[in-house]
């Protein structure tokens, strides 16, 4: 078991609570440190199904199947994964599938790894080109409301929604082990 010694930031637990309140039943994910707490909570929740994916586009298809069967799903990924989803996102428009994804950003703030930046710059635009409305949370205090609003737009109004969780929010990645 590798669990972090310190408790997670409150905004991360707020995301789990929003998903729970919002009746999300299937949580597809490709892991990211910023999603780690939510992923742990979902695995521990008997009313939610955590589905680890080999690539992010699987999560778009998973959400489609879940909706066909009457369940709400969410896709957790980091910005690099958005590029993997593009063609699969066609189904969201073609079938008008309610869709929610939460995207942790890399490559935009104090980024050590230059390979993260090209997809980071394209993350929002790529999703908008595919017809997804993109919103963004930069500060901890706006996360809960932003995610809750996006969830409502998705499942009450049938929209395709993404929330970007900024790298500044997640914090600088420690590249040197203490």
């Amino acid at each position, binding site marked *: 078991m590798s669990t972090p010694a310190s408790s997670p930031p409150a905004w991360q637990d707020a995301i789990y609570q929003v998903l729970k309140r919002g009746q999300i039943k299937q949580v597809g994910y490709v892991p990211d440190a910023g999603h780690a707490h939510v992923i742990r909570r979902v695995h521990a929740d008997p009313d939610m199904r955590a589905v680890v994916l080999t690539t992010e586009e699987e999560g778009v298809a998973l959400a489609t199947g879940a909706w066909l069967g009457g369940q709400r799903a969410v896709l957790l990924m980091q910005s690099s994964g958005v590029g993997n989803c593009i063609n699969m996102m066609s189904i969201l428009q073609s079938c008008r599938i*309610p869709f929610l994804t939460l995207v942790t950003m890399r490559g935009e703030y104090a980024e050590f790894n230059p390979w993260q930046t090209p997809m980071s710059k394209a993350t929002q635009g790529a999703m908008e080109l595919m017809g997804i409305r993109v919103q963004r949370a930069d500060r901890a205090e706006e996360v809960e409301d932003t995610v809750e609003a996006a969830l409502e737009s998705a499942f009450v109004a049938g929209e395709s929604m993404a929330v970007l969780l900024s790298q500044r929010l997640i914090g600088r990645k420690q590249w040197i082990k203490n």
Partner: protein
Amino acid sequence: MSTTSFASATLDRRAVVAQLIQRVPNVLAVAGLGSSTYDLYAAGDRDRNFYLWGAMGGATMIGLGLALAQPQESVVVLTGDGEQLMGLGALATVGAQQPPNLTIVVLDNGHFGETGMQQSHTHLGTDLTAVAKACSIANAFRVQEASGLDAVVQAIQSRQGPSLAQILVKADDLPRALPSRDGVYIKNRVRSSLGLPTF
């Protein structure tokens, strides 16, 4: 390693799908892009059919999401070798979830039938049954004769874990049978068959 022999394939994909649906008429069926969608429609249009006209590589994951959402139902993914190969990782994801009510039927003709019959990876050495087994889909098997459909029907009915049937079919270029291309309509029809509202 045995190479799959497509030259000796005798099964007709349309007949295979028609017989399957006839024997398990209540399944929720997801058909992958291309010939599998035509095959499912040719077997008779049903409210419980979800036809893909795009999203190549997504059929198995749509089937997984549906199977998890509807544990009382039997879900069948009907797809081709090319479509499954594009989403090969989905077999690992299914293996990790072990949905008892999901059966993946790959109509394997060893070719990309929609685009000029180029040889696919299954023709060139990939053994989808072995891949599925290696992804912990224990009930993965190959079907080469009509009698082998019994095992497919049994997998669908028994709901004892995910299954994958690799059915070797002739690489025929059959006349197209085109279901509705209106994704919203097809989606709402499936949901309605389950008693669900539009959204």
